[in-house]
Each structure stands twice: as C-alpha cells, then as structure tokens.
C-alpha cells in the first residue's frame, strides 16, 4: 500500500515533465537557478532540453512503477520505510544529475547518486557480499566522480564557462585547446566508471546484491545511465575528434562483447540481465562515439527501449524469485500456468529486447545498423561487433521470456504463485509500452528523437524513424543476421554456457578478483605505513618531529642559496651582555646537568634570561608571557617528572646523545639562520602602519599586540584557544588513563615551548 501512495511523487514529477514537451520540442531550453557561491559565479542551476527531458521522464516514469513494485516486493519487510527513503533519495539525486546546469551542481548530484546507490546496494547489510558490493560500487563510481570533477574544472578553465549550457554554447572551443586530451580523458574516465565500461565493468554485476527493485531501477533508467548521459551531453563539447571516436567506440565495443558473452555464461536470472546491461551500456557508448545523426538517434531510441524492457525484465525476475524462491534458470520450468500475467509481461519485454518488429527495440536496432552500413572498413568491424553483441542479448531476452515459463514444471523451493497487482503492474505496463511505442513513430520522432538528438548532435536533427521492413535496405539484413545468430545460440544455450564456463575457469582471473587484490594491497600498505610511523616510541616521535623541522628549516635556505651574510658583532651595554651571559650559563647547565631537576630549573633560568632580553629590547608583552610560560614549564615539567617516576638522572648512550645533540643543534641553527634571513630582508611595514594608524582611534586600544590578538586577528585567537582547550581535555583524558601514563607528558611540554617561541 505504501508503494502506491509514495508512487504519487514520481508520477507527479513525470506529469510535470510532460508539460515541458511543448517548449522543448521547439528546441528552447528551460533554465532555472539560484545563486550559490556568487563570489565565484557558482550557481545552483538547472536546465531542461531534449536530452534531459528524455532522461527525466524515464527516471520519474519508470521510478513510479519501481516504487509500486517495491511496495509489493518488500511487503512486511522490517526496514521497508528505510528502503523507500533511500529509493526516493536516489531518485532525487538522479533527477538533479540529469537536470543540472552548473558543473558543481552536476558534481554534487553525481556524487549523491554514488552515495545513495551505496546505501541501496548495501541495503541488506547483514550479508558480507552486499557490503562488499556496496563498497566496490562506491569506490569505483566515487573515484570516477573525482576524475570527472577534475575534467569539468579543466573544461571550465578552457572554455571560461562553468555551466553545461555555457559550454554547449561555446562548443568546438575545447577541442582546439592543448589541454583537450587530458580534460577529455578525465571526463570519460568519470563516465566510464559510472556506466561500468571496460575496465571498470566489474562493479555492476556485483551490485545485483541489492534487492531486485533496486537492480531494476539502477540498471534500467538510472545510475548506470548517468555516464551515458554525461557522454551524450558532452558530445558537442568534447566530441568530433579522432581520440573521442576511438576511445568511445573501442571501449564501448569491448564492453558490449564482454557483457553479451558473459551474460550467456550465467544461470542466475538477475546476473544474466546484469551482464546484458553491461552490453547495452557498451552499445550506447559506442553509438555516442560514432556521433553521426543516425548513431545519435539510434542511441536515443535504444536508451528508451532498454529502459523499458530492462526495467520490466528485472521486475519479472524478481517476481519469479518471489513466487518460486529461486532465480536459477536451469531449475525454473513450466511457470506459464502458475504465473500467466508475468509470462505475458516477460514475453512482451523479451520481444523488445530481441528486437523483433514493431517493438521499439526493433526500431532502435534498425537505426543503429543504418548508421553503420556505409561499407567502409571500421564501420564493418563495428557492425560485426554490434551484430554479435545484439545476438547475445537477444538470446538472454528470449531465455528469460521463454525458458522459465515453458516445458514441464519442476519442483522449486516455494510452490509457484502469481505476484500481486503491484508486482506485475510495472512489468506489464512497461512491456506494453515497449511494443506499442513502435507504432507511434511520428510522435516519437517529434517529441523524443528530434529534441534529444539535437542536444547530443549539436544541430537540428529531423528524425525520420519509421516502421518498415524493406528487404532492399542493408540494415534489415544486419537484423536478420542478428536473429539467425541469436536463434542458433538460443538453441544451444546450455552447451554455450558450459563451454564459456570452462573457458572462464581456464582463465581463472577476473577484474573482480583484481579489485580485491588491489584493495587488500592498499590495506596492507596502509597497515605498514601506520606501523612505521605509529610505533608508540615517544622519543622517536620527537626525534622525527625535530629532524623534519630541521630539514624544512635548512633545506629551502640551502637549495635556494639564500643563506644570510654574517651579521655585525652586536654592540650591547654591559647589562645586556649580562642577560646573554645568564642565558648561556643556563644553556650550558642544561646540557651538562647530572640530574633532571637541575636541567629543568636551568632551562627555566635560560628562558628567564631570554625574557629579560625581550624586556630590554622593548617587547613587554612578549617578555611577560615568556616569564609566565617559563615558570609554568618548570612547574609542570617537575610534576611530570614525579608523576612518571623518572630516574633522577638522564642516562643516554653515547650514540643517542650524539644523535639527539645533532638534531638539536640543527634545529637551533635552522631557526637562527631563518631569523637572520628575515632580519636582512626589507620589512614590509604596511601592516604595522595600518595597525599604528587604526589601533587607538578605531579599535580603542593603545596596546597593539593585544589589539591584534583580540580584534584584528581575533579569529586566529579563537582557533588557538579552541586548540588549547582541546589539548587540556586530551591531556586530562590521557592522564586519567592509567594504562599508558607515559604518552601524555612530553608532547605537552613541547607544545608549551612552541607557544613560548
């Protein structure tokens, strides 16, 4: 029941899309948007043209039936509410994706589809396989999303436009740019990852771990079509070059063959359909790669046909699973009596998938063959690939439409029964639409094909698709060859499957296994790096920290050859020399002290002497702070010492002493040299002048240091005091944690020192 009510939402969206048909058929794009980050000219904007309208209508139209179907399929499931919310979130993301205009809007929705599909694929999260499939899909499509973002930003830099409509308006610019190839490869990588093109194809069949309504939706109209949408959208901006042609057609062709052949190998209905989805996506990518008018029209037609029949067939597979308890095609037989409505729905969709006349699948196939029957060599090769791929998909369509329903019934886990209305409403309506759409070619030409084709082709397209069976047309012979090959394969389907299975076992390696190997390698690598860096030995942390500090202080100075010249011998009064002398005595005492307590106090004396020097040179604030920090450092270090029960003396091996001493001298030398360099540059006084001029009249304070802290740079201070507070909290937690009291102490005292510096 919930399904029927919630389906009102996508149905209303679908109806809204229908109202845009009028203006979009006249090739006017509808735009809307809000300012998002005006400082960068980024808008949250959308636009509707022929292509986005077709996608939007498919997503919301098929989504309506998927939601109804989900209500029946998951009736009584404890997490039905969660499922519907994920599903509708996904639908929203997908609609946003195909309607987005600004590239950042597009990217946000693109990533949202990755995230929501992750939730959907992993819906049954108590199973390890579902979790793995969800993570795999997220990594592959999310990683592709990052490539896409980089590509889109490059395109923005090349064209000066950050919206799709703007880029389309300046079509042809990007192809001339020197950075074209990189930008194109990045965009294509994002689209290939999303649309599961070879070599990123492995995630898609695994995504079958999701509940069947999700598979039906993700694979028919949505998720995997996002990449196809992007390539179609980008065709005017990036297409028309040799690189574009070869990359899309070759990878599309490989995916088509791979999907078609692997589909024959499977016995699970959903797996079979999943691999044909791969094939169909490859086919679409290939057609976009050709980019001719016929190819583009073939792609749009096939896109619609595929959404209709694949959505319906997935739902049929789910209904069979629901009714019998199995999806194994070698077990299922003779269901026509028990599930008559499902049988009819399966027949209608299988018919369209096989591309028999009057179905929309037939029109699509004819149009794409028409694009390739010019007789020159690459076309013929691609035609052969297409015929073989289509034949494979036809076999799967027929197998699913006929095999489970014909023959003598065999025992299944449940006694077969027909699904409820919500389970067969979707397959029947989509199946019928797939057949009758072929009869309304005038409407299709005017409303769907011409506007969408114009968006992809970047020029007016006058679609003239019509139902014909003309034996003089070479395209029809390609169809006939496809049917012949398909029927031959269908006849020997079991033998073909067993043979392919043996070949697969002979190869023994899959991309899926490769993904696992890569992931485990990454985890092992991360583990090793963590162990290397996070070994738990405090003195080594400190040593590494200071060694890195020394290198980063000294290396740039040496590499850029900007070492300072030796300063003049300072002219100081006797009391100033006195302070310097006290500092030096303190320092020598620290190094030579036998007991830790002496060293700590001597360090304090050295710090006090530095504070006196600050005072003498006119920095009272700094000096006060230094005094207090030194006092507190001595107190706290002494407390730490007693708390840790450290030995009174600090014994070090000679090697350790040399090592620590070297690092200490290097850091000290680094800071000294850096300060000398700073002093020998011309000081930019503009900030000082600003502060002097504004401190008293505007900020009401004569103490500029304090005004800087609490007013000019208050947000820095806010960050700092937050850090101090968090550090106090962390140290409190560490000290309370009796098990490892050591880890709490030393970093804190170094932090105080830094603050003092």
């Amino acid at each position, binding site marked *: 029941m919930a399904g029927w009510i919630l389906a009102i939402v996508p149905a209303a969206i679908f109806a809204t899309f229908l109202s845009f048909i009028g203006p979009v058929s006249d090739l006017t794009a509808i735009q809307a948007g809000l300012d998002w980050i005006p400082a960068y000219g980024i808008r949250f904007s959308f636009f509707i043209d022929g292509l986005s309208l077709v996608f939007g209508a498919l997503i919301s139209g098929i989504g309506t039936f998927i939601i109804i179907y989900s209500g029946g399929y998951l009736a009584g499931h404890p997490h039905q509410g969660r499922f519907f919310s994920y599903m509708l979130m996904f639908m929203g993301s997908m609609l946003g994706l195909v309607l987005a205009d600004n590239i950042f809007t597009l990217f946000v929705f693109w990533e949202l589809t990755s995230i929501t599909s992750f939730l959907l694929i992993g819906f049954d999260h108590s199973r390890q396989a579902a979790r793995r499939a969800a993570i795999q899909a997220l990594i592959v499509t999310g990683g592709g999303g990052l490539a896409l973002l980089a590509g889109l930003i490059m395109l923005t830099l090349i064209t000066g436009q950050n919206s799709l409509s703007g880029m389309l308006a300046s079509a042809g610019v990007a192809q001339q740019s020197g950075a074209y190839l990189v930008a194109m490869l990045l965009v294509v990588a994002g689209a290939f990852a999303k649309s599961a093109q070879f070599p990123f194809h492995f995630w898609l069949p695994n995504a079958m771990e999701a509940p069947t309504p999700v598979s039906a939706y993700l694979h028919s109209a949505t998720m995997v079509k996002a990449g196809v949408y992007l390539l179609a959208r980008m065709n005017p901006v990036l297409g028309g070059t040799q690189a574009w042609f070869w990359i899309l057609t070759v990878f599309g062709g490989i995916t088509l063959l791979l999907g078609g052949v692997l589909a024959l190998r499977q016995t699970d209905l959903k797996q079979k359909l999943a691999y044909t989805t791969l094939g169909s996506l490859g086919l679409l990518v290939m057609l976009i790669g050709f980019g001719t008018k016929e190819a583009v029209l073939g792609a749009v037609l096939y896109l619609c046909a595929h959404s209709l029949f694949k959505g319906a067939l997935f739902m049929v597979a789910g209904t069979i699973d629901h009714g019998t308890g199995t999806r194994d095609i070698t077990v299922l037989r003779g269901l026509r009596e028990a599930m008559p409505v499902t049988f009819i729905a399966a027949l209608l969709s299988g018919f369209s998938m096989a591309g028999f006349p009057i179905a929309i699948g037939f029109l699509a196939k004819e149009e794409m063959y028409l694009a390739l029957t010019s007789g020159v060599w690459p076309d013929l090769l691609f035609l052969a690939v297409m015929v073989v791929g289509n034949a494979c998909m036809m076999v799967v369509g027929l197998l699913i439409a006929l095999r489970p329903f014909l023959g003598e019934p065999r025992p299944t886990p449940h006694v077969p029964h027909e699904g409820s209305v919500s389970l067969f409403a979707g397959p029947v309506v989509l199946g019928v639409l797939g057949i009758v759409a072929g009869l309304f070619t005038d409407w299709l030409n005017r409303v769907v094909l011409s506007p969408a084709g114009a968006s992809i082709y970047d020029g007016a397209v006058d679609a003239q698709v019509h139902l014909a069976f003309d034996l003089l047309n070479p395209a029809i012979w390609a169809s006939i060859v496809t049917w012949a090959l398909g029927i031959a394969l269908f006849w020997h389907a079991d033998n073909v499957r067993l043979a392919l299975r043996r070949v697969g076992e002979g190869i023994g390696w899959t991309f899926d296994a490769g993904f696992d190997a890569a992931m485990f390698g990454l985890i092992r690598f991360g583990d090793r790096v963590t162990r290397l860096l996070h070994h738990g030995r405090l003195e080594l942390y400190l040593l590494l920290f200071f060694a890195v500090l020394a290198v980063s202080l000294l290396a740039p100075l040496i590499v850029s050859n900007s070492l300072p010249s030796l300063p003049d011998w300072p002219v100081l009064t006797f009391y100033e020399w006195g302070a310097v002398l006290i500092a030096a005595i303190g320092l020598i005492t620290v190094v030579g002290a036998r007991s830790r307590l002496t060293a700590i106090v001597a360090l304090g004396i050295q710090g006090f002497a530095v504070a006196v020097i600050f005072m003498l040179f006119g920095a009272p604030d700094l000096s006060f702070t230094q005094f207090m920090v030194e006092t507190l450092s001595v107190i706290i270090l002494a407390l730490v010492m007693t708390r840790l029960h450290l030995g009174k003396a600090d014994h070090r091996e000679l090697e350790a002493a040399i090592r620590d001493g070297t690092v200490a001298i290097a850091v000290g030398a680094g800071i000294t040299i850096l300060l000398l360099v700073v002093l020998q540059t011309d000081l930019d006084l503009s900030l000082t002048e600003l502060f002097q001029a504004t401190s008293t009249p505007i900020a009401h304070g004569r103490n500029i240091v304090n005004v800087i802290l609490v007013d000019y740079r208050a947000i820095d201070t806010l960050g700092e005091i937050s850090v101090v507070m968090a550090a106090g909290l962390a140290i409190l937690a560490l000290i*309370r944690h009796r098990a490892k009291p050591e880890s709490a102490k030393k970093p804190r005292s170094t932090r105080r020192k830094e603050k003092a510096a």
Partner: protein
Amino acid sequence: MNTVIFRTAAPALSALMLVFSVFVMLRGHNEPGGGFIGGLIGASGIAIYSISAGAAATRRALRVHPITLAGLGVVLAAIAGFVSLATEVPFLTGLWWIFEFEGAEIALSTPLLFDIGVYAVVVGAISTIALALDGEEGDD
C-alpha cells in the same frame, strides 16, 4: 620544597596573583597585559596553591572543574563573535559601548568579552594539566 615558609606564604601569594591576573587581563587593551598573560599568571597562582595545599584542596577551592572553565572560555569568545550578527557586520567585528559612570569612562566591548574568554581558556586548560599531574586521579 614544601617548607613551612612556602606553605604559609602560598595562599596569600596565590590570592594576590589571581587578583593581579584579572587586573593584567583587564588593562591589556591599553597597557602590557591581556587575556593570555593574565591567564598564565592566574594558572601559576593556582599551581602554587596546589603545590602547597595539595590538588584535592585546590579542586575544592575552585568549586568547578578547571576544564569547565576552559570550555566556558571558548563559548564566551564565540559569543563575542556572534554579537556582531545582531548588527549585521562580519563575525568577530569589534563593537564598543562607551559611557560615563560617576565621572569615569567605562568602555564595554566585544573584544573585552573575547579577552575574558581567552583568560578563562588559559587558566582552565593549564590548571587542568597541573592539577591532573599533581593530584590523584580519583580526585577528579
């Protein structure tokens, strides 16, 4: 180090230091001082008391856990920033209300509130550390 002289002088010294710390903090805008230095002086005062009288007695005297003070400080500083929302100027813009009171000029401002926040954070965080190191954990 815990001699009779120190134990006798410490409470008076601590009290003086705490009062002085507030003075240093308040005068900071025009003379050397400010929340950070004031906070350090205050924390030193608390540390001296803690060394002479023990961490448990210091905690009792403080009444609240010092980390609460640190948290309060961050909140005060943030509030000082958000006051500017009411007058539609950027976050943390200094706002001043200067008026006469019995012949003396009183200047209240968001930077003052901010500086009090800094003071509280420094006093709170440092005395948290000192007390935690000094006292038994059970006292917390």
